[in-house]
């Protein structure tokens, strides 16, 4: 066995972990895991986003419907005014 082999054997020799190694690892894992509150709040945020998007879409649709309704009413107002105008002329001519 030459000196290099001896050096490697010493360096790579099996060593037992310190006695509190397992406890420290578990403590570290527990510290990094998300708390139940955070896990719930993420769900709440997602639910709130769904509610906001759905509500926004419904409000936008409502607004579009209101605009379309107003345009239809304006169209009929204009058409009816013109027809009435023509009727007035006919009535005047008939007198």
């Amino acid at each position, binding site marked *: 066995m030459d000196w290099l082999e001896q050096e490697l054997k010493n360096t790579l020799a099996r060593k037992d972990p310190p006695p509190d190694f397992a406890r420290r690892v578990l403590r570290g894992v527990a510290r990094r895991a998300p708390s139940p509150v955070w896990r719930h709040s993420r769900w709440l945020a997602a639910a709130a986003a769904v509610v906001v998007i759905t509500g926004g879409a419904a409000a936008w649709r409502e607004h579009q419907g209101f605009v379309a309704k107003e345009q239809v009413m304006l169209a009929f107002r*204009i*058409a009816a005014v013109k027809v009435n105008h023509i*009727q007035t002329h006919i009535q005047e001519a008939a007198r």
Partner: protein
Amino acid sequence: MTVLRTLALVVAAAALLSAQQLKFNLDYLAAKASDSVDLSLNGATLQFAARFLSSKDADESKVKKMIASLDGIYIRTFEFKDAGAWAPADLEGVRQQLRGSEWSRIVGVKSGQEGENAEIYVRSENKKINGVAILVSGPKELTIVNIVGPVDLDSLASLGGHLGIPKVEITKHK
């Protein structure tokens, strides 16, 4: 792929043209007008609007019934501060379309004093009315209305007294 896209565009353009029976290219008059209205409501918009018209409100319910069978309403109105802002030639393009065999003029009113002209044309196919055009022109006003679909003129006229429009009583002479 390009052929399909072109075909889709042609079909879409044909659908648009078939919806509107009259073409009004009068956008240039809007700059001269003191007040103008441009309404282009196709069938889909009318049916969408119908969902928001109340059946309990007398006016809205009447309009709701009328638009149920319509395919579109297209209106252009212009009001001008001064007389002579528009020329009869502006209306010639529309009149030319109304000279087609499918259109017939049912009412024509000319007011010499006010210089106003009002006409109603109906478009029929297979002896059924499927469109109405209303042209009203005066020295300071120009209105073109095209209602596409089976229009009941009596119902339209009966809106007088509704929608804030004073009712005109027509005296029938026997």
